């Protein structure tokens, strides 16, 4: 659906060159909810805008719905944009106008007859659950309602792709969740492919199928949400994952670990999926010469699955710990030794 190959984009800011994108390639399949996460200035906003031609790459290619953007004329590009909805962090609505007016605009621009516009606006407002706000002025709405209007406006022309530019970053956690549920509904019920950028890992966790992590104009890591959350490789990815999955040992426990005189090893375990075949902790406890201490545990829901994280302190001699590790690995858990600097 969206295919970006070796995109490079450099801005001139005064006399300095800002490398927004350095050789970025991205592939989004039809029906995906694809999330790009990164800190501000990572280049995600520029990357998103390549898709509807609001930014043009210095080099590299962008192919959307089978069409190479660099080969499109002004008019063809405008036509393509009507099939790509876009939602913004600051909503970017006409604040002084009614909800209905805002949602009709893209349809009027596309030259739809007035009669049909009325019906379409009503349909799409019902979809975002704002049918009773048709004649309200945007300025009278809450942030979450404004974003619903933004989504309704983006969906009015029945696009195949929806681009979300930090769509939930200006909203409180509860509203964020309801907007994310709505985006999920858009994806499931309308079959719209969604490409979103965010700096909130919760957003990725809640609705994305795939994720790419950006840093300094590059995609440093990508894959399915479960694999990136389960085995983050890059430091930046770890930092993001840590914002939703707490795999740190509380400071008070660190002193407990440090004061332990016997031979020990602290292990970080991640289990993906709900099916645990054997009572691992119980079995570990039964092992001769091994003491097991649970330092922390969390459960996260994502992608219709769960990820459980355990931090275990294993106390025993080296051989015994090695045996325990082998036992853990057999369960298919992702295991990582945690090291503490003195």
């Amino acid at each position: 659906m969206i295919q970006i190959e070796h995109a490079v984009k450099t801005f001139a800011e005064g006399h300095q060159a800002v490398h927004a994108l350095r050789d970025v390639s991205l592939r989004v399949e039809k029906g995906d909810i694809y999330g790009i996460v990164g800190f501000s200035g990572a280049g995600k906003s520029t990357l998103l805008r390549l898709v509807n031609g609001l930014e043009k790459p210095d080099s590299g290619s962008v192919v959307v719905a089978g069409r190479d953007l660099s080969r499109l004329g002004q008019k063809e590009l405008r036509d393509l944009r009507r099939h790509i909805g876009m939602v913004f962090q600051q909503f970017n609505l006409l604040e002084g106008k009614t909800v209905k007016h805002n949602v009709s605009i893209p349809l009027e621009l596309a030259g739809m007859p007035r009669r049909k516009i009325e019906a379409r606006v009503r349909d799409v407002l019902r979809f975002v659950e704002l049918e009773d706000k048709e004649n309200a002025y945007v300025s009278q709405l809450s942030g979450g309602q404004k974003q619903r209007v933004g989504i309704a406006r983006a969906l009015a022309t029945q696009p195949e792709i929806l681009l979300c530019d930090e769509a939930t970053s200006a909203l409180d956690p509860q509203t964020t969740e309801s907007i994310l549920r709505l985006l999920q509904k858009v994806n499931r019920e309308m079959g719209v492919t969604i490409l979103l950028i965010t700096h909130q890992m919760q957003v990725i966790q809640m609705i994305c199928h795939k994720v790419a992590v950006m840093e300094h104009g590059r995609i440093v890591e990508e894959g399915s949400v479960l694999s990136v959350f389960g085995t983050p490789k890059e430091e930046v990815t770890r930092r993001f994952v840590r914002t939703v999955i707490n795999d740190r040992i509380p400071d008070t426990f660190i002193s407990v670990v440090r004061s332990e005189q016997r031979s020990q090893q602290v292990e970080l375990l991640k289990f993906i999926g709900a099916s645990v075949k054997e009572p691992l902790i119980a079995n570990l406890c039964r092992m001769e010469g091994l003491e097991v201490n649970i330092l922390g545990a969390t459960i996260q829901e994502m992608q219709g699955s769960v990820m459980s994280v355990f931090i275990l302190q294993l106390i025993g001699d080296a051989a015994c710990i090695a045996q325990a590790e082998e036992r853990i690995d057999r369960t298919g858990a992702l295991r990582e030794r945690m090291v503490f600097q003195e």
Partner: protein
Amino acid sequence: MTDWQALFKETFGIKWPKLLESLGQTVYMLGWALLIGAVIGLLLALVLVLCRKDGLKQNRAIYDIVNVYVNIVRSMPFIITLVFVFPVTRLIVGKTYGSTAMLVPLVIYISPYMARLMENSLLDVSPGVIEAAQAMGATTWQIVTRFLLPEALPSIVLAMTTGTVGLLGATAMAGYVGGGGVGDLALTYGYQRYNFPLLILTIVILVIFVQLLQLLGNRVSGKMRQHR
């Protein structure tokens, strides 16, 4: 002649209809110069906003030309512009006196001023709204007519109000050179004849005029902003 008309003549040294005639001339000059000047000003403002760096139709050459033109005209005092454009006035109107002839220098004077004020109004429109319009596949014309102008309108009305007050001052000068109007009345009948009461009267009239204009401008703009 009724008593109050005699009283008027006695107090201000002119006949009542003369004042009405002057008022009419002022309104005539103000109205037409405002109308034509605002239209030209808006066009200039749009050119400035669209052609500026990172504008929708970035064009350095056109921007520079309009920008320099606006600056040059704006740096000339009106009284200089007035006599400077006499040849142009003669070419267009056929004479260089009378209220209609004065419209030429008034429009030349006020349109760049309006352009600057309106340019600011247009630049105040959220870039996000413009980006949303582009993302919808709007043409430049659609962006201007459906997004830029409607969003900037309340602010443009205030800009026009400010411009109109400036224009009122210019009509007084234009009047003196042959356009008639309240300014002319104040100078020829008031100042030159040492008719102090008339001078005061014209000032009062002008003050009321400005107050009403500002009140109207604020009202209209406020009405437009009501829902934001």
